[in-house]
């Protein structure tokens, strides 16, 4: 059984992946900002939380990290999605849609 925090972790990982796929290479700050824009539910504590997710994804080989230079000439670590990461995202997104579809139908059931 996945605990509540594990489910949360999984959700966060999925969101990071999707962000990188949609927006191309980004540094940790940029990802954190984007996630904050999308939802203030998950990242309401602090921006540092995103780094645990980034370490996990790098270890799994779904994203890749590289030092680069930011738009205002600061050196920053940029993350980009890998081919394996894209496949994983596709699979997980499909799962997610299916489950949310099922749950959505379930919740729409009228009481008899």
């Amino acid at each position, binding site marked *: 059984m996945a605990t509540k925090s594990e489910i949360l972790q999984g959700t966060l990982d999925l969101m990071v992946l999707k962000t990188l796929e949609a927006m191309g290479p980004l540094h940790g700050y940029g990802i954190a900002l984007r996630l904050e824009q999308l939802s203030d539910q998950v990242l309401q504590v*602090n921006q540092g*939380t995103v*780094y645990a997710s980034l*370490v*996990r994804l790098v*270890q*799994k*080989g779904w994203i890749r990290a590289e030092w680069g230079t930011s738009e*205002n000439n600061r050196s920053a670590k940029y993350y980009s999605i890998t081919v394996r990461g894209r496949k994983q995202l596709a699979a997980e997104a499909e799962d997610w849609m299916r489950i949310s579809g099922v749950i959505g139908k379930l919740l729409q059931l009228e009481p008899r």
Partner: protein
Amino acid sequence: MSILEFVRVTLSRIRSTLHPRRVDEDFRKELASHLELLTEDNIRRGMTPAEARRQACLRLGGVDQLSEINLEMQGLPFIETLIQDTRYSWRVLRKSPGFAVTAVLTVALGIGASAVVFAALNAIILRPLNVPQPESLYSIHRSDTIAVQSYPDYLDLRDGNRSFEDLAAYNLELVGLDTDDNPSRAWGIATSGNYFDVLHIQPYLGRLFHASDEHGLNSAPYVVLGYGYWQARFHNDPGVIGLTIQLDKHPFTVIGVTPHQFRGTLLIASPDFFVPIVNQEQIDATNVLNDRGNRNAIFMTLGHLKPGVTPAEAAADVNSIWSDLVKRYPKDHMPSTFVLGRPSLYGDRLGRPMRAFLFALMLLALLILVAACANLGTLFAARAADRSREVALRLALGARRLRILRQLFTEALLISSAGGALGLWGGLLLLRSLRTWQPFPQWPINIPITPDAKVYAAAVVLIVVSGLLFGAVPVRQVLRTDPYEIVKAGSRTTASRSITIRDLLLVGQISICAVLITASLAAVRGLEHSLHSNFGFEPQNAMLVNTVLDMAGYRGDQVPAMQKRLLESIRAIPQVTSVALVDLPPLNGGVRGGPIFRDETTDLRPANAAATADMMKVSPDYFRTAGTALFDGRDFSWHDDKDAPRVAVINEEFARKIFGSAANSVGRYFKIQDGTRIQVVGVAEDGKYENLTEDPTAATFLPILQSPTSDSWLVVRSGADTQSLATAIKQRLKELDSGLPSFIQTWNSAMALPLFPERMATAALGVLGLIGAMLSVTGIFGMAAYSVGRRKKELGTRMALGAQSKQVLQAALGRSFRLLAVGSVVGLVLGIFASRVLASIVYHATSRDPLILAGAVLSMFLLGLLATWIPAQRALSFDPSVLLREE
């Protein structure tokens, strides 16, 4: 997480673990850049630089905390904790070296014994033969006797069966082998031409022979050498191919050498050479290939089953061919049943007792390991109790119970690994020294036990399992520890009077040890009985000289003439009391049974036989020389020759079976297979002929002049020193014929063969019994020393109040002794049952012998005394005034 993902993550973690500082610096740099970006954005939103920085720090979270999490995620927490725990355990064990050494040695004994026995079990029973596709290789065995079939029968089986890919056959051969007039004895096998092809063996050097090399009698004078013999005798010389060597004075050409891994198909003996069986006449002096009734012509028939054929189907196939043969040749065949077996241990004949013995030994070795674990469990529980204060303190400081247990298990595994490594190392040394051991000088029997990966894997499993077992004993104790109570009350809890798990473990351990001690005493006593039982001959003060005359080229009438000369020449040695000749001495590993018929029987088919009797061909004076008592009638003389009426001396069992009683059998007649009438001229005592545990067996002795044999064993009785006697005999033999290979040994040393199973059983059980004794000493010692140490204060108080030393001892050690007594009684009772199993291996073994019971009780008592001696001394040496001031 999938396995692939897990591997990837673990690899990445390992990479990071190798450079922890770089990983940390990199991450801190990343966080710093994050803070700068965030601060800049904040300033852009209009904050003052200081405020922007503060807000940025708040939104990111604590840098140190994030770095900590990062390091934990990038590292290998399991390994790191393990290293930590191992370091801690090492420090703890270093503080109590006595405990550590005892514990390590205890594990070493348990693991070492199990590993050695498992290595033997693996090499002899579990591992298949080292030939291609061993799983479909089967041999054909008779279920009633050790012999298999005659050569014509083999041909019929080979050509008639539909179950085997092909069938090969071989017979064991002892020859005189010389390269240049330097004969020495060599063991080999005469095989059917297809032997190597049936087994799919390729040559190491030269070529091997094939069925196409056989063109009738003596048509293939080729010899293939075994790798080991080629190495020993020809020093790896590849030039040996094409060389002509003499086997029993007949020229054979060396055509090849078998590969190193191929040791023949019989596990216990690796052949020196292989010759085609069509040339068997040249090395056996008589041609047995056309004799359908000679069941001893083939030692083993074997082949690969065709795909899809089960052993049972193949056996049915063989049996139906056999019943046809019995119908076609009723004079030569008895109805018989064949079964399929594994060739490595001669089917079930050797396989069943070996399996039973090795599995029993494995069980005992595992029992030892269990006893060792119980022993250590007791010690660990005691230590855990002593360390309850430390545990309580750590719990109070916030350690999780799981973390503390993990540390205790690490300690247990550290001990079991150290002990296991030590035990395995000792076991390997023992096995290496046994590798070249040949238990019988005159037989090429040798089983090299080389441990393989399976043995190491088993040892590792045993090490881990036993570490977890004895590490698990104190678990309950730790889980129940209440930190507040212990910190408040101090570690000296009052000794509980109820039965604890420690007591049970100690009793269990002692009873296992008592079983082992009882069993080993029973085996030793059984062996002693066997050594002094009546074999029907007297091996003391006698020598056996083996010469096979056909090895030196003697044929026909030359044989008896030479035998007479041999006897006369040896009799002339001054110290010799008497000398006689026998074709094969009893209990020397031979098979010589033949059917015996009553005089009135006319249809001499084997089914009508009145009995099967061992037949020995002996010279005059054999009975006096061998020490076989002659009850009635007369000995043979040199006048019992070819021209005289056929005579025999029979044993009592023979007389009982054929004539009803021994009393009036002299003068009566019986018949043998070929119809010859033989008159009984004497009755000798019963004896043991094939093995020590056999039932009384009928036997008959025939004069050598009437049944000639070239197998000649001289029995030389003399009170003289064996060394000088052997030299004198050698000298005489050399004078008679310098080219005659011979083998001289005392009859007592020849008894090594029949006594081997008992000696092995006794040695193995003796060692296990000794280990059991050592374990019970350390077990009782540990417990007694612990209880004395723990109750120091109480004992001091008692002494201060005027207790006598007897009372002090009773208080200190009474419990240990009571546990010892209970354990011993349980063990003795179990030992009595266990010895019933033992009786099947060791002749005369019984534990109902009062001497054994008394011996076992006495040894347990002495062991208890020995083990409690030091703790008792320590208890008595306490000075109450010092003790009471101490705390």
